């Protein structure tokens, strides 16, 4: 186990830039997720860490060692692939022991380690079976056991749950998180599934067009997105555009088409007055105000319901407000009357300022 550093890593294919510039410092034992849409450079970044692709510029360090030019064999990394990539001609025991055989670990130690790992992934007794005899979830657990059999300095996971169905994916997420808590292996995880990233990671790097847009804890990525891309990619979001006109009681005052609203000032961000800004508000933070006295110090706006979508425990309601903006409101179905005209309100701290 070691820390992992990417310093100014760039990957270009001719004119095409796959990874524009990535600087990352993943701490020892940390679980970091590269999150982004396909083509954002997350897989390329992971494959550069693995050594399957050489970076055009920059350095990759595991611990204190510069591994930039090193072939994958010499990097001491474990990896879990989306399609499991188990060896079809080898038994489960031989699959798990693959790296141990390559590193000439004695047979007795190998057998002991296989037993430990099968207990760890809760699949005891499948030693002599073949991958094709196991289900997808079981195969992926075996792939994980293979990746950590010879304790790797860094564990890489390339959309490992992508091929599983929803129920299994959720169960595997919990299992992965529990394993990570137990093993504390430095892990880089690649996914385009924001829910997965949220529930598994210590930190998330949201990537877009070959760059990291925001590197932060899951709660900050969700609650304090720094760019529109991040806000949009992670969960559902409403945007209100306007101009910053001042400050009051620690809140920013913004003039928008729905009137003057107050929003949270991000500690790190600095905005010149009168600059164009965007306020982001999560749909679950918007509510319907039934009586004016309920509003308190909330921002309020009157609007007209455009559509309602019942999703089970919650309803998604679209409300047209001035400025040709539609706000998405998430609420309990019981909170909604039949009235078409509603007043929407939200607490000032739930509006987050984003740089344009």
């Amino acid at each position: 186990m070691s820390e992992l550093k990417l310093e100014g890593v760039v990957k270009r294919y001719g004119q095409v830039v796959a990874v524009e510039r990535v600087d990352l410092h993943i701490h020892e034992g940390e679980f970091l997720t590269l999150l982004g849409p396909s083509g954002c450079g997350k897989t390329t970044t992971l494959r550069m860490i693995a050594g399957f692709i050489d970076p055009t510029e920059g350095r990759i360090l595991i611990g204190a060692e510069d591994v930039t030019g090193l072939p994958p064999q010499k990097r001491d990394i474990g990896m879990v692939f989306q399609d499991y990539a188990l060896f079809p001609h080898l038994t489960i025991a031989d699959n798990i022991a693959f790296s141990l055989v390559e590193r000439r670990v004695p047979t007795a130690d190998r057998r002991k380690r296989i037993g430990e790992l099968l207990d760890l992934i809760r699949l005891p007794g499948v030693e002599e079976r073949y991958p094709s005899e196991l289900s997808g979830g079981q195969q992926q657990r075996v792939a994980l056991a293979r990746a950590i059999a010879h304790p790797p300095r860094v564990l890489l996971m390339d959309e490992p749950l992508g091929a599983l169905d929803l129920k299994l994916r959720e169960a595997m997420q919990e299992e992965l998180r529990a394993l990570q808590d137990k093993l504390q292996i430095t892990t880089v995880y690649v996914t385009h599934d924001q829910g997965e990233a949220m529930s598994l990671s210590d930190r998330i790097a949201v990537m877009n067009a070959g760059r990291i847009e925001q590197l932060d804890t899951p709660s900050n990525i969700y609650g304090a997105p720094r760019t529109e891309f991040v806000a949009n990619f992670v969960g559902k979001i409403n945007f209100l555009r306007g101009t910053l006109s001042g400050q009051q009681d620690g809140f920013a005052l913004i003039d928008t088409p729905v009137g003057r609203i107050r929003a949270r000032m991000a500690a790190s961000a600095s905005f010149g007055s009168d600059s164009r800004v965007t306020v982001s508000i999560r749909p679950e933070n918007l509510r319907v105000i039934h009586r004016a006295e309920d509003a308190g110090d909330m921002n309020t706006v009157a609007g007209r319901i455009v559509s309602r979508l019942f999703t089970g425990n919650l309803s998604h309601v679209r409300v047209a407000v001035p400025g040709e903006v539609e706000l998405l409101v998430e609420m309990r179905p019981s909170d909604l009357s039949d009235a078409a005209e509603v007043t929407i309100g939200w607490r000032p701290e739930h509006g987050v300022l984003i740089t344009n």
Partner: protein
Amino acid sequence: MNTRWSLFLVVPLAVSLVLLVASQSVFLESSLHADLGFGRMAPAWSLHNYIRVLTDDFYLRVLWLTVMVSGIAAVLTIVVGFPIAYVLARMRSRWAGVLMLGILLSTFVTIVIKIFGLIVIFNADGPVNRLLLGAGIVAKPINLIGTPAGVVVGLMYFTIGFAVLLMYAVARTVPRSVEEAAEIHGASRRRVFLRVILPICLPGIAVGFLTVFNMCMGAFTSAALLGGGRVLTLPVLIQRTILFEVKYGMAGTISAILLFSVLLINLFGIFVLRRFRIGRRVVA
């Protein structure tokens, strides 16, 4: 209503029966008649020809030579063909398609033209010998034509295109990620080949070997032209028995021996193959 598509298979079955079984039964029947000379055959059935072939050293040596030459040619063809197929299967540039097309086209050039090309290249005054002589590697020109080695080269030339196409399909079944998994978990390129690529491809390679071997066993043109009348394989012998000796019965018997030895070798091959397992899926 479901169309019963399997019924359509009756047509190819009928064609196969007529072309394969019917035609073979003609020479199988003639193999049971002793020759009386001048193309006449004894009216009664007997095992005379079979006893002759299976006890005469000459015929047994021809059978052995045919199996050896075919076996060596098939092994070498696979050894040369598999790496080519593997590289093609892994190529991501558009040249892969061009190269594939080249192999495909050259495969369907008639063997007669290819063999004459070989004869020109390898004859005593040809470019290969001039190069070897000029470089001082050999003292006198090496002669491939009329030697078993020449026949092996001819058979390889005849089958390599098919072998590459067959092996290409086999190599494509190994996912890139499986190789990468082996690499990242500590295997060198050599070990990846020995522990992963080769074992996964082995059943396919074996099937390819049998296919190439069968083609070699029955190859007439390459053996006749490069053997130059001095290397006798079973197909060449059959032709001579019919054309020069006019012994239809004996020719039928030699054909039957060729047929049954190929059949036996293939059955043995399939038996061995069944013992390979990929997972618990039995191959072949």
